[in-house]
């Protein structure tokens, strides 16, 4: 085994050397692409030498490096929503060139370019299953209660769904919400929702761009098997001081940004707070819910080759239920990053990141507090080496230390009937090393191949229970049910000890073959390991669900995904079509035994069985990129199933060991989003969504017991909620203003769920307390919701 690996590595090295050695007589042009109005670096701008196939896309920090044989070229820079730039350059030495591009001005008879950038090199890039959204696109979409919502906007993309209003998180290609790695300026965000899914935690005023990897996850990412949602905050305006903000029905926002240190740096500070609870209180309502958040960003340019970035996020939700119950929860993150350019072809970034999610519940009536948290420290070092015009190398490593506090009960008074309790803290260390190459084999064929090696050490400092026959869960063949195993003792692990360790090779590969000027075929394979898991046996993810690390009883999840796609530009990039098919399997996906109880449970292993899941589907995306009418139409046909055999517990497993639908299965998922530039003052927007109902479990009979009618339930997830559909409309009004006016305002009028569809968030079954008859009760969260928001920029 070892020898084989060595051979493989040697082969890669030889390949590398071959590529490097052919890179002679070439010169390199490098630099940063920025927005001319505010100095924001632009991620994903395309930099191309016209008439050649030599081109790159700027990285997360706007950096590019392009290497070509000596000569005269026309350099072409393009970025969605910005004016193209073309300039003559003479490449006779290595040189640096920072370039600023300006936004396309909004003029009456001028076309506005929105939707996705017409990336000229994208057809050649093996990158697939990826969606990049600019915040400008997101802001144009109609939204509920006037709150621009990144999480809701990505749900308009093919392969992205969620459990409907009132549920946190999102599901990618039939995966669970905990299988998404959500990064805000590289910091892990554990809960993406405010108010249980009504709003996302990302303040659109502080966000620059969003990139969603539904598959084909590059080797530099790891740790979640379904997707990566990479969200980047703005750096802050480095040219002049500015204010942006908005006043809405539910919340208001204010952001300030400006230059620092003689324009060698900039800052951004953005805050947002809801105030509906104030009205509720004023109206005599005892119960209330509100949220607020704060985004911070600062950067400082030490010199041409070194820049520091500081980012922070703090958000919180607060619930009050009269005086008997209160709860708050939220994310906190902070990080320091250091960009260092070694030379014109080697870019590096080091990140030091802290993030935390915690919640507390005060049960005043029972006189106790319940608290829980997850903390992590993360060090990352990423390098990008532009070897030559045909070969780019990404490599680096990361290390994450986790500290999970699954729960503590603290009585708040002497007379409390509740005893103090601390569940065992769990600790883990996740390491990853990766190398990823993008290799242009020929004019038509580009490969991307890489390898990530990840390890996870479940660290000591806690006891681990021992079970009879090593079975935390035991099948009772007489009653045909799964029961908790019998504890026979425990092993106490010292802090310095490792309880269990895991290691996984995660190969990633992709290719793009360009069929002609406007179409290409891409294919990809990726394996990803996931070492931490969200425990949730409820129909919707709740803020109270607890994360738990892999260990003696929970194996890491391991996904293998295969995808193939066809990409085509039509009519000179006016339209584009993307069709992708995927097949994904996940090993070691846990599910919960019948009657599992996770709350305050110190021994989760007695409630779960290890299983597997699989998902496959076909995604179709048609976009109109330019013109007065822009937008896209997305359709996904898919299936997502899981199977949970008995394993070491014995017995047939959950649902008799048969495949059953995951709660994230949607046979059909259709969405249409569009924006129309009616006039200089008015822009109209519309969203249309249709989804097959979520798999749920309904009764299949009833019997009398203890004077009550008791439902017997059918097989897990063998029924479905009614289909989910709705239409949203919006209109944005930008009043006349003088071209040089500092104050720019706009009104956004929106109607969510125009035809007042009562989409079922859940259907519950029970007895009518007056008649005793069984009935089905539907809970629908939002009917028709009109809203108005005023946004300004100063």
């Amino acid at each position: 085994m070892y020898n084989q690996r060595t051979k493989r590595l040697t082969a890669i090295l030889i390949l590398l050397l071959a590529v490097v050695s052919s890179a002679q007589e070439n010169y390199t042009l490098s630099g940063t692409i920025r927005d001319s109005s505010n100095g924001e670096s632009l991620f994903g701008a395309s930099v191309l030498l016209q008439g050649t196939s030599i081109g790159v896309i700027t990285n997360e920090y706007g950096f590019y490096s392009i290497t070509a044989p000596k000569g005269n070229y026309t350099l072409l820079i393009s970025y969605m929503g910005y004016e193209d730039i073309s300039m003559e350059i003479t490449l006779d030495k290595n040189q640096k060139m920072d370039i600023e591009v300006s936004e396309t001005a909004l003029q009456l008879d001028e076309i506005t370019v929105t939707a996705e950038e017409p990336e000229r090199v994208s057809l050649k890039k093996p990158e697939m299953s990826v969606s990049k959204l600019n915040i400008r696109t997101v802001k144009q979409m109609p939204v509920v209660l006037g709150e621009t919502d990144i999480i809701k906007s990505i749900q308009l993309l093919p392969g992205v769904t969620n459990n409907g209003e009132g549920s946190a998180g999102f599901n990618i290609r039939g995966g669970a919400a905990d299988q998404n790695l959500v990064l805000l300026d590289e910091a892990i965000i554990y809960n993406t929702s405010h108010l249980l899914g009504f709003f996302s935690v990302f303040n659109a005023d502080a966000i620059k761009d969003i990139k969603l990897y539904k598959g084909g996850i590059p080797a530099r990412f790891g740790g979640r098997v379904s997707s990566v949602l990479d969200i980047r905050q703005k750096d802050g305006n480095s040219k002049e001081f500015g204010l942006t903000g908005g006043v809405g029905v539910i919340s208001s926002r204010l952001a300030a940004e400006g230059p620092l240190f003689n324009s060698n740096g900039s800052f951004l500070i953005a805050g947002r707070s809801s105030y509906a609870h104030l009205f509720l209180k004023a109206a005599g309502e005892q119960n209330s819910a509100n949220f607020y958040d704060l985004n911070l960003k600062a950067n400082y340019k030490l010199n041409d080759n070194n820049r520091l970035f500081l980012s922070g996020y703090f958000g919180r939700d607060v619930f009050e239920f009269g005086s008997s119950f209160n709860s708050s929860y939220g994310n906190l993150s902070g990080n320091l990053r250091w960009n260092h350019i070694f030379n014109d072809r080697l870019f590096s970034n080091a990140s030091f990141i802290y993030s935390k999610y915690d919640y507390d519940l005060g049960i005043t009536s029972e006189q106790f507090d319940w608290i829980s948290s997850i903390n992590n420290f993360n060090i990352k070092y990423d390098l990008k080496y532009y070897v030559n015009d045909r070969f780019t190398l990404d490599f680096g490593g990361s290390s994450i230390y986790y500290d999970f506090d699954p729960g503590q009960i603290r009585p708040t008074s002497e007379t409390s009937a509740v005893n103090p309790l601390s569940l065992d803290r769990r600790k883990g260390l996740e390491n990853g090393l990766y190398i990823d190459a993008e290799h242009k084999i020929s004019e038509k064929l580009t490969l991307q191949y890489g390898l990530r090696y990840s390890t996870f050490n479940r660290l000591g400092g806690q006891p681990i229970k021992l079970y009879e026959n090593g079975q935390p869960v035991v099948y009772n063949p007489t009653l045909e049910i799964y029961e908790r195993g019998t504890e026979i003792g425990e092993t106490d692990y010292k802090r310095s000890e490792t309880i269990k360790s895991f290691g996984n090779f995660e190969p990633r590969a992709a290719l793009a073959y360009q069929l002609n000027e406007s179409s290409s075929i891409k294919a990809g394979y990726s394996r990803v390991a996931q070492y931490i898991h969200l425990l949730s046996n409820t129909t919707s993810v709740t803020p109270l669900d607890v994360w738990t690390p892999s260990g003696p009883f929970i194996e890491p999840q391991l996904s293998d995904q295969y995808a193939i796609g066809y990409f085509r530009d039509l009519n000179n990039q006016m339209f584009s079509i993307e069709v992708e098919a995927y097949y994904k399997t996940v090993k070691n996906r846990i599910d919960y035994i019948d009657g599992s109880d996770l709350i305050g449970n110190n021994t989760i292993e007695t409630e779960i069985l290890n299983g597997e899941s699989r998902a496959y589907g076909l995604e179709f995306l048609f976009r109109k990129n330019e013109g007065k009418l822009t937008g896209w139409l997305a359709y996904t046909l898919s299936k997502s199933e899981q199977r949970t055999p008995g394993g070491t517990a014995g017995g047939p497993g959950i649902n008799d060991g048969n495949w059953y639908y995951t709660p994230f299965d949607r046979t059909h998922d259709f969405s249409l989003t569009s924006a129309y530039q009616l006039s200089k003052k008015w822009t109209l927007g519309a969203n249309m969504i249709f989804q097959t109902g979520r798999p749920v479990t309904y009764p299949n009979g009833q019997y009398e017991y203890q004077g009550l009618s008791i439902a017997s339930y059918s097989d897990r997830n063998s029924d479905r909620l009614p289909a989910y559909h709705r239409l949203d409309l919006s209109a944005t009004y930008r009043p006349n203003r003088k071209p040089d006016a500092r104050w720019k305002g706009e009104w956004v009028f929106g109607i969510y769920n125009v035809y007042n569809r009562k989409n079922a968030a859940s259907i519950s079954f029970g007895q009518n307390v007056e008649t005793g008859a069984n009935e089905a009760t539907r809970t629908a969260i939002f009917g028709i919701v009109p809203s108005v928001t005023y946004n300004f920029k100063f």
Partner: protein
Amino acid sequence: MKTILKIYGILIVLVITSCEDVIDVEVQEAPERLTIEASLDWEKGTAGNEQTIKLSTSTPYFQEDRNSAVTGATVRVTNDSNGAVFIFADQNNGEYFNGSFVPVLNQQYTLEVVYQGETYRATETMMPVTDITDLTQSTEDGFDDEALEVNVIFTDPADEDNYYLFSFQERGDLLPVLEDLDDEFVNGNEISWWFEKEEDDDEEEFVTGDIVDIEMYGISEDYHNFIRILIEQSEGAGLFSTTPVAIRGNCVNVDNPDNYANGYFRLTQVVRQSYTFE
């Protein structure tokens, strides 16, 4: 603890515009199954000789006529230590009666039901229960600090795991409300278990003069596992409730295991009291 999740569900309903309505839903139809309601409950301070076991069959979920009494079965309970057999006589209305049952605390018994040529068997132990020390009323406990609630005060025995089943039924109400308690977080403490009614479309808060019948059962861990899920699921599967499952009791069909019976063979000691709100 599970109430926490329920509270979130309620919060959503209350705080944010949402609506609930009763709708028609098509459900699957499972094959008919025998239900054994063998609850041998020994009221403290009585002889506990008179016991009834009810047999019925399941019906489709939305079927209005739920009268499905089972007659013609043979039912008997055996004391596993001394072999004493108690025959429960068919009353031809779904009830099977024995007037000379001898309850013994912590004693194991076996139930045997023969119905349509198949034998169902279950084994369970008679569980004791502690006394209710006091019944009080208040407004400050409970979810709503303005609504009246009744408090059942008792002292949980220390150094042992105890499980409780409560039944509250206001006189005049059609249905009882069942609640379960595991002493895991409150072991050995004096416990005040409150019950309050919320003001909504179907229900009214307690007012002076209301009488509520209270039952407190001592139950086994296995029965707690059963009744806990049953209670949770009978409250309806809301947004944050766990995925509902088939609930398996302890009555095993020894001839045809797949054709198991719904219900449970339980033996409990129970304290029954009433409280009139002042």
